[in-house]
């Protein structure tokens, strides 16, 4: 709170007051600055556009002729068995690796021609969460804010908000190397949400390691962000999570999209299937007897 007051240049004599009064001071300062606020930008539609994507590693084809569109206000689930090419797709989407063929656009920017602008738009949570062990959670979040050119006062407010959402308060000054997997995942999530909404998100197993409360909070947050106009692509094995969260699904198998559409479309295309799990099993090798 005091740091925020310092960033906002609230006079030092005014800071030595009760916490509730300081909150009022901060709110007044924010309201005073409100006219300077830049209007919330809208995402390009589609926010994620992958066309004819092919990715080879030597002679092995990891992803073949893959197409995907995610519009603002939509959560798309990328589901598939192990080795189906989901993580490779997300790594190409986030610009970590280059496609062998095809184009990838994020918020209208080509990932490999306007790389910085495209990367500025997308937030990524990897399959295996890793982070700098020698940074504290607070330092990491501020580091991310700095990378994404966020004003310090906005970063502090957002950090406080998401720290409360993910119940990270007691770990804020802990070294990341000492955190459990679940808490590390929360820190990474705060790191991507500290930026300006609306978001374009590529989340690889985002529920991984979260306890039921953390998972519930994240799902509620993702639904709210979707309703506010964010575009979210979730890769997951957990079909319950996918069916609960996603508007549409793309089912991948052996590097190709073998099914796509809303749950209703998928169920109508597969008459014998009663739920997403059975559609998934039917498209990826058949339902085990």
């Amino acid at each position: 709170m005091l740091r925020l007051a310092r960033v906002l240049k609230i006079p030092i004599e005014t800071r030595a007051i009760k916490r509730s009064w300081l909150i009022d001071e901060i709110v007044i300062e924010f309201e005073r600055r409100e006219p300077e606020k830049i209007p919330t930008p809208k995402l390009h539609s589609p926010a994620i556009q992958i066309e004819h994507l092919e990715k080879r590693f030597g002679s092995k084809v990891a992803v073949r002729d893959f197409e995907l569109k995610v519009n603002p206000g939509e959560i798309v689930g990328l589901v598939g068995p192990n080795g189906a090419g989901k993580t490779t797709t997300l790594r190409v989407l986030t610009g970590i690796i280059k496609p062998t063929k095809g184009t990838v656009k994020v918020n209208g920017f080509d990932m490999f021609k306007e790389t910085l602008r495209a990367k500025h738009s997308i937030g990524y949570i990897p399959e295996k969460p890793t982070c700098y062990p020698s940074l504290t959670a607070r330092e990491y979040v501020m580091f991310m804010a700095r990378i994404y050119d966020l004003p310090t006062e906005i970063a502090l407010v957002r950090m406080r908000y998401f720290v409360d959402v993910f119940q990270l308060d007691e770990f804020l000054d802990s070294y990341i190397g000492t955190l459990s997997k679940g808490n590390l995942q929360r820190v990474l999530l705060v790191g991507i949400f500290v930026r300006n909404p609306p978001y374009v998100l590529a989340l690889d197993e985002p529920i991984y390691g979260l306890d039921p409360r953390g998972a519930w909070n994240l799902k509620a947050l993702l639904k709210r962000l979707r309703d506010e106009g964010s575009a979210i692509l979730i890769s997951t094995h957990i079909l319950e999570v996918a069916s609960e969260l996603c508007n549409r699904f793309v089912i991948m198998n052996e590097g190709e999209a073998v099914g796509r559409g809303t749950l209703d479309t998928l169920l109508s295309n597969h008459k014998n299937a009663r739920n997403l799990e059975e559609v998934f099993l039917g498209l990826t090798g058949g339902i085990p007897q």
Partner: protein
Amino acid sequence: MLYNQFKQTITTPSMLLFYCVTVFGIFFVSMIVSSLLTLSPVFFQLGTILEDIIDRGMLFAAFGLLSVTSVVSGFFGLGPASGLTSIQENVLLPAPVLPHQVFLGNYVRRIIRRLVFAFLGVLAILPLLTEANLLFFNAFFLIISFIVFLETNYFLGAVSSYIRITVERRTRSRLRYFLAVLLGMIVFYPVFPEFTSTFTPAFLAPSNAFGLVLTEMSGVFSINLSFMIGFQLQFIVFFIALLFTANICNYDYYELFSLVKGRDEMEGNFSRFARGEVDFSNNRFRDPMVWIMLKDFYSRLRSPFQIWKYVYVVVGTIFVVYLNLFHPEWFRSVQIPPNLAFAVVPAFLLMLILLIQMSSVTSMLSFVDEKENVYLLKASPFRSRDIILAKFLLSLFEVGIAVIPACGLLIYILRIEGYIALITLAAPLTILFTAIGIAIGAYVPVLTNDPRTLPVPLAFSYPIINLSLGTLLLGIVTIFAGNLYLLLILPLYSVGFMAVFLGIAAKALNSYL
């Protein structure tokens, strides 16, 4: 991050302890060595001896070969991608940060760490430097110059790697590998005596500039120039090479890093070949200790990086047997001048300690090689002492066989009287160093929750503890030489310390994070 690491080190008692052991250990060893040896006459005569044995061109050629090695290995290597980490892959590579910014960030961190280690190193060997009448600042200056030389070589390797990537984009012909030879020749060309016997623009070449600093600072092969000229040239070329490397960093290196990382995680052709038809699950042993040893042995044999240790043992042993039997003309043993005869036995013993130290690094890695599986091992229904003993016995076997070629080479190179008696010291040293390695390795998961990474203080304290106890062992041997009690004291010393360190290892295993 560096600041945080420093803060963590000085606030974590175990880390601080290991750093103290490292720095004061080196200080202690250098004090002992400087009191045992009279180094200043050796250093003063070294220049004359060097001038008698080799010529100026040969000295410069030796440094030139270092640059050639960097260029050729850089051609086949990762270049700036070697500095990337999995964490950066997840955090910085998808972020709106340019590749050269990632490279420069990594590089500045790396250079600060190196300078700090260089400073601590010079500080720790201060007794040796004082005894040898070498000025502290000269030694520090020379180390800085050497670091700048190595770093410039690293950049040459990075440029070489960039050339390969650029060429591979156009052709996959096998002829492209000849480029490595061509680049090596280009780097070696300015080293020829025609360019180095007098001051020429060829001194811009990193190896020549370092050679100039060394020769002018020491006065050996001097051409009466100020060594500062060489130092300035080194820095000019260093900064040009740094900026050039930053400039060539692009997204291709992200791709390269991901590819190599993926390859590490997949089973390579070589490991399939190494595995053969052997299935160690078909054996009659029921002791869990033997199973841990078998698991480790076959895991290592099947790892492309580890099997080279065994290949080295076989090839190295054949080679030293050949050397000692046939004394080939093309590789003669060192002829020690009579005025340096007094230093031969201590030199032999110090080299023996160093060689065994190098061979025993395997033991320190026996727990690190388990990676996250170390927790699985810990959670298995084995007694801690069985795990420790299994790790110790297999490491002892591996270190033992790796020591054989090293000792054979030492005997051949420094053919001194009474070498048979001296070389038997290899056995207690091997036992001791292996046990220390196991204890240090067992502490990795105690100090960090990333058991695949060896913390720097642990890695540094290992050779220092070895050198300290090795030197102490030599001291005992010197004191009791000719006394029958030595036959009792020596086994007691090595087995006693072995038991202590294995006990420490078991204690570490019981206190994992």
